[in-house]
Structures are given as structure tokens and as C-alpha cells.
């Protein structure tokens, strides 16, 4: 996944311009690394041709894990480890355990999915990742096109110009994440490597 690559970065200021641009860039055969938007844009992942996320499958697995954990633990505690007579109810009282089972199911799936989401999006404290444009969190839709040895940068730039990009530049950047802190270290990874 990770590695240093060269990108042509185009920033758009309108969603309505971005969609046809994405379509045309894909049709022209360029490889879109990613599109960064200030807010979730409906249908963009479909336009980008991304595969369906498997986050919900992960969520289901976490939920099942939570259900099993709760049921096995509670039943072990109340029937084997420390049986108590509560209101004359049987030791194995399924209805009384359902609320806790439900809570643990939700807790496991929620926490698990958040962590998985952060991992998939490469987000974490004490971790750095290259930002193609600071305005991607403000008012720009930023499209990063990955360059291979055969790509003609100038051609891509003029292509983006025609597609309606407001700001176009070429960046050489690390694609993955690396350990570091935004508040302490300003030096980029590629400088550390002397690139």
C-alpha cells in the first residue's frame, strides 16, 4: 500500500463539476488515487467505482462476538461461578439477561466498527498522513490522480483544467500513514528520507 508516489492534484469548488470530472477522468483511463471532500457526497463512491465497503460485515461479526461474550459470561457467572437466588427466579433466566446481551452486542459492534473505520481510513492519534490540500476540509473537493511512469503530467494537468478544476498542482507524497504528530513535527516524511 504505502510508498512514495507522484500525484496530479486538482481542486474543484463545486460538486456539480466534480461528478462529470470524475466520470471523464475515469473514462480517459487515469487512475484516481482518492477524492477528498468537505462533507459526505452521496453517490460519489459509486461514481468512483469503489467496491462496496465490508465495514458492515465486520460490524455483524463484532455484534455476534458481543452476543456470545455476554451470554456465555452471564450464564457462567449465574449458574456455575456464583449462583444467587434472585426473586425465586431460576438461575438460568434468559429474559433477565437479554438487556445486557443487547447492550454488549451494540457496544462491541459500535466500538469495533469505529476502530475498523479508523484503520481503513488511516486515522489515529499520533499518526500522520499526507494532506493533498488543506481546503479539502473547508470548501474544496480535491481529486488526486496517481501518476505512473507512462503518465504525461502536463497532459493530465490540461485535462483537469478542461474538467473545471480551480487549482492544479503536482505533489510527491507518501500514500500511507506513518508515526508522527501534527502538532510537534512539521517535517514531511519524504524530507526525512531525503527524497
Amino acid at each position: 500500500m504505502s510508498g512514495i508516489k507522484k500525484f496530479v492534484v486538482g481542486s474543484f469548488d463545486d460538486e456539480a463539476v466534480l461528478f462529470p470530472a470524475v466520470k471523464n477522468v475515469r473514462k480517459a483511463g487515469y487512475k484516481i488515487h482518492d477524492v477528498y471532500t468537505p462533507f459526505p457526497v452521496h453517490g460519489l463512491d459509486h461514481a468512483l467505482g469503489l467496491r462496496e465497503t465490508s465495514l458492515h460485515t465486520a460490524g455483524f461479526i463484532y455484534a455476534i462476538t458481543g452476543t456470545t461474550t455476554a451470554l456465555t459470561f452471564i450464564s457462567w457467572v449465574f449458574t456455575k461461578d456464583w449462583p444467587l437466588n434472585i426473586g425465586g427466579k431460576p438461575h438460568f433466566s434468559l429474559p433477565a439477561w437479554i438487556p445486557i446481551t443487547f447492550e454488549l452486542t451494540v457496544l462491541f459492534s459500535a466500538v469495533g466498527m469505529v476502530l475498523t473505520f479508523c484503520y481503513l481510513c488511516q486515522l489515529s492519534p499520533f499518526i500522520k498522513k499526507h494532506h493533498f490540500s488543506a481546503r479539502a476540509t473547508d470548501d474544496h473537493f480535491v481529486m488526486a490522480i496517481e501518476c505512473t511512469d507512462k503518465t504525461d503530467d502536463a497532459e493530465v494537468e490540461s485535462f483537469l483544467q478542461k474538467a473545471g478544476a480551480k487549482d492544479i498542482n503536482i505533489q510527491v507524497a507518501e500514500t500511507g500513514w506513518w508515526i508522527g504528530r501534527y502538532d510537534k513535527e512539521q517535517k514531511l516524511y519524504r524530507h526525512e528520507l531525503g527524497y
Partner: protein
Amino acid sequence: MNQQFQLPGSYKKWTWGLIVAGLIAVLYGFIKFHPFTHPVAGDGNYDSTRFWAVLLQNSVYWLLLVNASMFFICITTLAMGGWQTAMRRVPEAISSVVPLLGIINFVVLLALILGGRTDIYHWLDPNLYVKGTSTFDKILNGKHGFLNPTFFLVWSALCTLLWSLLGKKMRSLSLNADSDGAMDHTKAKRWLDKNFTFASYYIVFFGLSVASVTPWLWLMSIDPHWYSTMYSWYTFSSTFVSGLSLIAIFVIFLKNRDQLEYVTEEHLHDIGKFMFAFSVFWAYLWFDQYMLIWYSNQPEETRYFIARIGTATQSGPYSGIFFFNLIVNFLGPLLILMKKGSKRNWTVVTFVAVLIIFGHWIDFYQMIMPGTLGAHAELLPFEFGVACLFIGIIMWGTGRFFEKNSLVPKNNPFLKESMIHHT
């Protein structure tokens, strides 16, 4: 735009087939079960009770089910929802059956009250309220201000009337917009304001009726000593999820006939989400009602569940149906509709919708039968025949609306939003 819809012959055949089958069942019950006699204690003949209990189950269930369509329109209106506009005519069509089913239901209730059916509504017995006698009932005497024939009938009439009138107003607002030409900004705003007003009236009355008082009177008073604060919500969730399923079935039916051109998988996905979510909501109420009573273990409360699933040592006559209920209405929809792909699959959604409608019909069956027939309830062609009558009436009324009106609300300001809808 293909607007005027001609019902296919097979639809009409099915409609009349079901109505005729249902009428035969009712007629059979009318002749065979002597509905105007009263059961005599100890002789083992429960036929007349069975006749009225089955009619009550079906008329209340199917009425609340079609009424859920208007509730769906009103909540989406108040929430400024746009996605449902392309298929809005379907819930409108279903809700147009409310007046007819409301009248049928009211006639059934009138017969129960005026006929003094103490086997269905035990609280109708006047001897319960005579002080100093052996039949005097302290608890029911305390509830008498609420549980009495006058209030029962006035409230039932009010429900039928207001559901019908407010629903008619909402429908006519939508239908009149068709002929009024395209709306500009001010006109659309005024039109929406009117919609908001009547939708709000409807929702407020819906909260007072379906979500509280009406199920207490119509269904919970079958077990008059018992009460549950969850009962109305339980009834509401049950009928709302089956109402959504009925909408899904009609949307898919019209889509199969090349109608509703703007309805896509995206809309089906959202209906599927609704069905999924409210199945879970129903299960939440099903469980909570059970667990709280199980936990506190008060004799006056547990009797409701003892009549259904029995005690720890002896299982009750309805335990099979009671847990079957949980499988068809919760586990089935939960596991089948969980995947995105199945919510977008027309066949799977149809299957689950039929399952839910049948499951909640059975749910109403187990809500009514234990308190009226006890262990003597049947699930024979008569029960299904009466259900056929009501399904036939719903198909007839809905089909009539489809033929008379355009299926696309072409001037609705939200139509564009619905056309480009994306989940």
C-alpha cells in the same frame, strides 16, 4: 408519461375471488355459528364467540393496517421527506380504504356492544357494577368511567370519522395539485403549509387514538383486569410494520406492471429499511412487555401470559403461536433484510412483506383469542376466509384508486428530489 393505469384482469379476478371466498366464509359462520346466541357456561359450545372474535381480529387488524399508510404519508410530510414522493400515490391509494373498513369495523364493534357480548368484552356485564352483590367487581368498578359502552362507541365513531376525514383531506390536497399546474415557489410554500397543518392534526389524533386510547378500548379491554402500558405501542408497531409491508407489495406490483417509472431500487431500499427497523422496534416492545411482567411476577399481570404460554410446569395453548410470532416477525425480517442486497431485491422484499403481514395477523390472533375463546380457538378455513374478505376489500379499494388517479404526483414540489434519490 404513462399515467393512466388499467388494472390487469388477473388482479380483478383475484380481488373478486377473495371477496367471494370471504363472503362465503362469513355466511357460513353466520348460518353455522348462530352469532346472535350467547354461550352457556359449561355446554362446551363456543361457536358464537368464535364468530365475533374472528371478525373483531380481522376488522381491527386490517383497519389499523391500512390506516398506517396515512400515518406514513403524514410523518414523511412533517419530516419534509422527499424520497417517497415518487411512490406517494401508493399509500394514498391504500389509505382510501380506511372509510370503508372503518365502517365495517364500527358495525362489528356496535354489534358487540349492543349485543352485550360479555364473552368478548367481559366489562359489558351490568352485574359487575351493582354494589353489595356477589358479582360486584371492585377493579372494573374503578375503571367504569372509562370502560363503558357510551365512551367506547363515541370514541370508536370519532376514530373512524377523523381518520377518514383527515385522510381524505390529505389525499385531496395531493390529488388537486395534479390539475392545478406546475407550482412556483410561493404557491408550493402555501401548498406545503396546508399539508403540514392537516398532517399535524392527523398525527396528534393518531397519537391519541392508535398510539394510546383505541387499542385500550378495542383490544386490551378483552382482558379488562389486566393492563400494560406498552400495549398501544405494541399494537401500533405491529400495524405500522405490516402497513409498510403492504405499501412495499403494491409498489412492487405496480413496478411489475411498468408503472411508477421514477421508483428505483433506492426507494425500495428505503422501504426495506423501514420494514427492518420497525420489525426490530416491534420485537423490542414484545420483549419489554414480557420481561417487565415476568420480572415483577405480580399475579394480576402474569395472568395475561399464563393464558398464552402457560406456566413453568405446563405450557399454555398459545405457546407455539407466541414464539412462532417472534420468529416470523423478528428473526425472519432481521436476518433476511439485514443485507443491503436483500433490501434492494424486489423478490426478497416481496417475500418478507408477505411474511410480516401474515405474522402480524397471527400476532393479533394471539392478542384476541386467549381472552375470548381460551383453549377453544381454531385456525381453520373460517379464520382464513374472513381474512380473505378483508384482503379482497383492500385490493378492491386500492385498485379503484389506481385506476381513477394518476400514479405520479407530477406537481409535487418534492418530485425532483425523489427522482434523483440516492441512499
